[in-house]
């Protein structure tokens, strides 16, 4: 790559396509970076606690560098579009929650309908593409506070992710992280073989 990709492009590249959920995540990640005055994580200086596993989380991973593999992305399966971004260096954390809307945006409702429909007609394909453009502009142009509530919170930083020894499962012979295995008279047993 010749040029540094801007955050939005990083997120789209990582996620694979553009969709409203990803754009919401981009807004959250960009806000958190600005609010906490931090750049992309290198080695767990940042930590993200996400309460959803929807598209927006991919933007958090791509833009903030809080990733599943690095261990600084903590997933809580609450089904809520809530993201807590914390900086170890700054000892600060901000909790960002998407506002609940009684009356959902008609464009978004229609987009969702089309997105869930299996066989779209030509007209519907065009309509879906146009709607995505409209929603895209809306999400990216709307003042942040119209979409999200946010507040600084006290945050207990966990230890950085640890690297544990790998032991061999006595049954399948495959390697397994020691704390994930159980030990019996046969030796270490991996979760798959238990």
């Amino acid at each position, binding site marked *: *790559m*010749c*040029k540094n*990709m*801007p955050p*939005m*492009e990083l997120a*789209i*590249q990582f996620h694979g396509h*553009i969709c409203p959920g990803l754009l919401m995540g*981009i807004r959250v990640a960009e806000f958190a970076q600005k609010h906490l005055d931090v750049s992309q994580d290198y080695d767990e200086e940042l930590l993200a606690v996400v309460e959803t596993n929807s598209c927006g989380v991919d933007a958090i991973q791509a833009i903030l560098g809080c990733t599943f593999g690095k261990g600084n992305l903590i997933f809580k399966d609450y089904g809520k579009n809530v993201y807590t971004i914390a900086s170890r260096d700054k000892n600060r954390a901000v909790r960002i929650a998407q506002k609940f809307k009684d*009356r959902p945006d*008609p*464009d978004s*409702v*229609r987009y969702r*309908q089309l997105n869930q429909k299996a066989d779209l*007609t*030509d*007209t519907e*394909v*065009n*309509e879906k*593409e*146009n709607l*995505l*453009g409209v929603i*895209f*502009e809306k999400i*990216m*142009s709307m003042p942040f506070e119209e979409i999200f509530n946010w507040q600084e919170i006290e945050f207990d930083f966990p230890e950085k992710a640890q690297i544990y020894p790998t032991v061999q499962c006595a049954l399948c012979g495959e390697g397994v992280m020691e704390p994930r295995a159980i030990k019996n008279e046969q030796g270490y047993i991996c979760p798959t073989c238990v």
Partner: protein
Amino acid sequence: MCEANVYINRSGQEELLMESVDRIVPGEDHSIFMENIFGERRVIKARIREMELVHHRIILEEIREASESRHLELWLEPDTNHGHFHPGEEVSLKLHKGYNMCIDSEAGFSVLQAFLVNEGVLEEVDMHDHHGTMEIGINQKLDGLVQVYVREQGDQERYAITLVEVGHHHHHGMKPAGLPLEIVPCDYSHARLGENYEIQVLKEGQPLAGVEVRVTYSSTQNRDYPHRLTTDEEGRAKLFLTARGNYLFSVSDDNIISTFTLIKSF
């Protein structure tokens, strides 16, 4: 009748378009706006064919774009997939003819000429047919932003221009190339997704107000141009970029069709 289901007739087949519609507003240019009791809205190019009030049914007939209204245009695309060329690399571009970035393989070319504008200096460059595709290859040392344009003279006068970046981080604006009808980017600074992009339409070097600028992009699945803008009194129009890939801006006036390809790196 409180609300009705709206159907569209396509090639003799009826297809449910929207349920429980309680508002229909015919618009200009054969468009029909409809809204239902759930707050869903749609706009479609169609005419009302029949209203069965007792059965709460409205039947529309789709209006297809007349093919004769779809003029053919030229456009240029770079032979690179990351938005720019490197110094020392051959700058290669492909010339296409068609509509809405869909190549019309039947369309032939009349008299073609290609030009390079480098730091204000105009020079004709070679164009050759490579397996049925017209290509422009510029084998000279370039660095910075250069303009490449093609002119076709025939039944209509057609122009295609693009801005090619050789090297990195060239943010300065460009002077118009001086085409009779030209789309000029207002502030070239690496057009990005999620940002506004502004162009200006010039006719004989003067801003052209109130003209329609059609805009499309390479990944569109629309049969027709997805965006239609109108220039303001300074000949300017702005678009929020929402798609990956290159964009094509097109304008026509007085038997001249002129396009500008916005090359994006993503």
